[in-house]
């Protein structure tokens, strides 16, 4: 496959996944803003969402304070924020258009229809009480795209690069969402404030129900961390994402007669750490340190994949 094609497939999946993750994070933040202003600083939730989405420096250059309106503008519409929902869809569709023939018709239509809808979106559709509906729509469109890819793509290299993009982005997102709440997950208190945050951490990866099904018990910060990092059953856990990343990279290498590089080694190393790591060790090391390490290595892995398959 052409390197440029692989690059576009990888990035269109990353941007699509990112749009869904931002929508999920924003949904949780709105909910929190509704219940937590009295618990917490006025804008703490918006601040941590900006940190989690990784664009806070750009935000503060442009907006005076993290009010709800400013953050929504930044995370949904602002063309200066490449990880915002509209710019993500735009970038995904631009990449898709450049590799039209590598996509199935269903994938193309999922992206193209979303983009056509967003292009004609009236500003009030993301205001006030209508915002949650809009965010729900975004999540549905992302799921439609993922479903289209899952159901219609040949299990060849193109599929592997698409899914690799989705999984790498998802791993990064889970690590970041967990990290912004790391102090609340390690303080050990059981006050009302912490409890709301634990719920929020689970909700932001759509895992609140999953927690109850896995543990049949009340929320506990150590279990939340375990679920989101080490439990393979949860599709958005770090280990689930990394198991997929390793398998996909292996699949690409196998189809090319075993050609491997640093990206394969690095993915294996991160996966091994999650697979054979102990929860106690994570807490001993420090949750923040552990998550920072994962976030940094994930970014490195993205770079190594590009170096080996795209910029070679």
């Amino acid at each position: 496959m052409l390197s440029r094609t692989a690059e576009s497939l990888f990035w269109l999946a990353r941007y699509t996944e990112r749009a869904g993750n931002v929508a999920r994070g924003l949904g949780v933040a709105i909910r929190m803003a509704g219940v937590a202003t009295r618990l917490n600083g006025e804008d703490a939730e918006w601040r941590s969402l900006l940190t989690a989405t990784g664009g806070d420096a750009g935000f503060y250059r442009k907006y005076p304070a993290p009010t709800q309106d400013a953050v929504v503008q930044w995370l949904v519409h602002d063309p200066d924020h490449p990880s915002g929902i509209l710019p993500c869809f735009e970038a995904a569709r631009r990449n898709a258009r450049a590799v039209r023939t590598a996509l199935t018709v269903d994938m193309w239509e999922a992206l193209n229809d979303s983009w056509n809808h967003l292009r004609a979106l009236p500003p009030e559709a993301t205001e006030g009480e209508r915002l949650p509906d809009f965010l729900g729509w975004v999540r549905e469109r992302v799921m439609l795209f993922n479903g289209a890819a899952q159901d219609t793509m040949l299990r060849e290299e193109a599929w592997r690069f698409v899914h690799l993009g989705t999984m790498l982005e998802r791993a990064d997102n889970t690590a970041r969402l967990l990290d912004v709440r790391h102090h609340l997950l390690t303080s050990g208190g059981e006050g009302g404030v912490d409890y709301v945050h634990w719920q929020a951490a689970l909700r932001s990866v759509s895992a609140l129900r999953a927690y109850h099904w896995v543990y049949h018990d009340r929320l506990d910060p150590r279990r939340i961390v375990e679920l989101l990092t080490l439990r393979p059953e949860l599709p958005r856990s770090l280990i689930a994402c990394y198991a997929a990343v390793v398998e996909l990279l292996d699949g690409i290498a196998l189809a090319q007669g075993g050609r491997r590089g640093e990206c394969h080694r690095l993915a294996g190393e991160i996966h091994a750490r999650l697979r054979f790591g102990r929860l106690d060790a994570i807490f001993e090391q420090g949750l923040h340190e552990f998550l920072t390490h994962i976030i940094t290595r994930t970014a490195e892995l993205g770079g190594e994949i590009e170096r080996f398959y795209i910029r070679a």
Partner: protein
Amino acid sequence: MAGSAAFDEMNGLDGDVRGPYAEIARWLRATPREQLYRKREEAELLFRRIGITFAVYGEGGDPERLIPFDLIPRILARSEWEVLSRGLTQRVRALNAFLADVYGAREILRAGRIPAKLVTGNELYREQMNGFTPPGGIYTHVCGIDLVRTGPEQFHVLEDNCRTPSGVSYMLENREAMVRLLPRLCARHRIASVSRYPEELLTTLKSAAPSACKGVPTVVLLTPGPFNSAYYEHCFLADEMGVEVVEGADLFVQDRVVFMRTTAGPKRVDVIYRRIDDEYLDPECFLPESMLGVPGLMAAYRAGHVALANAPGCGVADDKAIYPYVPEMIRFYLAEEPLIPNVDTYLCEREEERKYVLAHLDSLVVKLAKGSGGYGMLVGPHATRDMREEFRARILARPADYIAQPTLALSTCPTVAEQGIAPRHVDLRPFVLASADGIRIVPGGLTRVALREGSLVVNSSQGGGTKDTWVLEDDLVAAVSAEPVRSQSQSQSQGGGPGGC
């Protein structure tokens, strides 16, 4: 002159329905207008969903817009097509012979049959091609010849497109649309298939591979990218042929060999079907600031390590100033008389002809010698006085840039218009594939239709539309007006049935 006197391909000159259109005329009589309009909406939806768009820049509005598709097919009888096919073959052979000659021995210039200045002084002449023979001696592998019709037997070549002609995807998609939208109408005709075009193109491209290439040649299509107006076509053709669509940055040259960057490492490329213009091919050889091309490509080409289709420098054969001499080429190289005549053409550069043109601006069509796409054109009978005066000034300022032709009464075909079915002017662009072992033409081509009443400009950039073009396998309609015997039950497979669409 134009308009009322035009030959209608369905109703002829006397109003009697011509043979090939018998079934269409019956169908049009039997179909309520609302149903036609509904089908037209379905067609638009179909094209929009598939994403067949044509980008037109500098006009605002939707940058990915649809070329309107007209439901009523344009039909040619087998006997008509055979004459055209022979004429097209002859013309493309002569054009290739001409290119080989002007970049080689230059016999036609030495024989004084074409003024040397028009060729070697032409801005489309590429010095870089001197003394180099492309594989198989073929220069223009894919050629689009624009034909117009003025009477039952009267076809003319309006223009040759020897460089990177586009539109063939519409020929294929229009047929696809017809089979989906009007399967029964298709089934009542025996329509010659066009679906082999991508295969024929791939065969042509493979046969263009350098002789040094052993094994199955790796073919790629080189596109300027998604912002090009024909990008959809580039992807479509590559997909149909099963070859990669590459941009300049996907290719690199090492030791005068061309490689593409793939996820499995560099892969050697043997044949490049390039859909970018000469000037952008190689910044080391042509425009140094070009970002679209591949540095070192021409050196690899001249070393015989890669083939380019079409070859650089083909523009000197389709230039409008060279066009009047194509009949002369046919006589010179093939010792034959042209089977499809040219349209009379006046070169404003020549004093006598310029005087004639300036005195007859109200009846002539004036075109830019280097222009394409219907831009910078004056249709005398339809122009205002101010427009004619503007062109007069322009011609006087730069006579060599302009040519003029009589305003032809282009033939018309019935077309779905707002007020019902009405005759609209059409032209035809068949696609001719040339390789060392012969010429291949799929029967038909792209019919373009001027949708505005009385308009003679069919270019898609100027609001023209397209029609499916049917060449009938036999001159009699297959199954006279009866419905197909088989019922339209669920057991019947989708698609064309016996029509061979």
